[in-house]
């Protein structure tokens, strides 16, 4: 084990914890709101370990949405890991299959971003241990804050409206995802259709809004501004 690389990865992850801590607390609160006990809440955090999808799934479960829709929504949110997996794969090439399986489990937005930035910089670093330093730190803080949120959530009166923190977390990660005109169109179409379809059964507004929003983004990108779209 290369402890200096591990420590460097852990140290680089520290500034990102400011964004992880409130997110983890909300995931814990959402679990309590959905009627999960502490063991189930921890189980979800350990088994899935992907914040946005955990919170979305809990919010849908609370509303007794059909399980197929809950699973589909959570998995669609996590499709982005395909992109991270493809992007980081060349750097993990020489590791054994067992190490690859372990490294993949702790792959997150933050661990991916830190590690790839470090691999591409001029500073030499032990790839496996730098990645593990960052990823394991993020994993541990995520588990601790989820538990803290679940414990806190049971003690807070309903009048505080703590469940409103859930859409606020999504808002905070939505805005940086709107990076150009095409992704803005995807967001506006997805959001508007979800509002229009809010009363539909099976939470169809969410699925239809997401699907049509993605399609609108692809179409917008294909026909850039100023093109007559022939």
């Amino acid at each position: 084990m290369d402890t200096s690389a591990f420590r460097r990865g852990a140290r680089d992850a520290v500034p990102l914890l400011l964004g992880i801590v409130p997110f983890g607390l909300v995931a814990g609160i959402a679990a309590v709101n959905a009627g999960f006990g502490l063991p189930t809440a921890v189980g979800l955090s350990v088994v899935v370990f992907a914040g946005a999808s955990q919170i979305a799934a809990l919010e849908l479960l609370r509303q007794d949405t059909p399980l197929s829709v809950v699973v589909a929504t959570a998995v669609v949110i996590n499709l982005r890991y395909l992109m991270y997996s493809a992007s980081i794969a060349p750097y993990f090439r020489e590791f054994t299959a067992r190490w690859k399986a372990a490294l993949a489990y702790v792959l997150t937005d933050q661990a991916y971003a830190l590690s790839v930035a470090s691999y591409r910089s001029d500073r030499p670093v032990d790839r496996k241990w730098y990645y593990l330093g960052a990823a394991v730190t993020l994993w541990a803080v995520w588990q601790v804050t989820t538990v803290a949120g679940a414990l806190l959530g049971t003690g807070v009166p309903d009048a505080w409206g703590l469940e409103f923190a859930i859409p606020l977390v999504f808002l905070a990660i939505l805005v940086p995802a709107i990076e150009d005109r095409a992704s803005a169109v995807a967001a506006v179409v997805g959001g508007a259709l979800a509002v229009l379809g809010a009363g539909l059964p099976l939470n169809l507004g969410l699925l239809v809004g997401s699907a049509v929003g993605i399609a609108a983004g692809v179409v917008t990108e294909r026909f850039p501004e100023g093109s007559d779209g022939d």
Partner: protein
Amino acid sequence: MATSYDPVALAAAVALIGILTYACRLSFIALFGRLDEIPPGVERLLRFVPAAVLAALVLPSFVTLDAAAFAPDKFIAGALAAGVAWKTEDVFATMATGMGVLWAVRLLF
């Protein structure tokens, strides 16, 4: 309001989400050498997943077309939090603004 699903159904759903999420994470890391890149058509779709899905999750919490269910406190708090998210791109500032405005509106009106 808590879920009315029984623990076994919940555990099955959690396990399924976990397995499929892990499959996404492991996919290209495990297959490197046999499958090196995402097909460009799929990558174009994936690029829009966060914006479309998150907007569809967020917006109905702030706005509703059902006049009887419209909540001005949530609408105002959501709009101001969106402005702060845009300016700062900071999770903590966005949440503090949203919750702060929600409580202020509820106290004042």
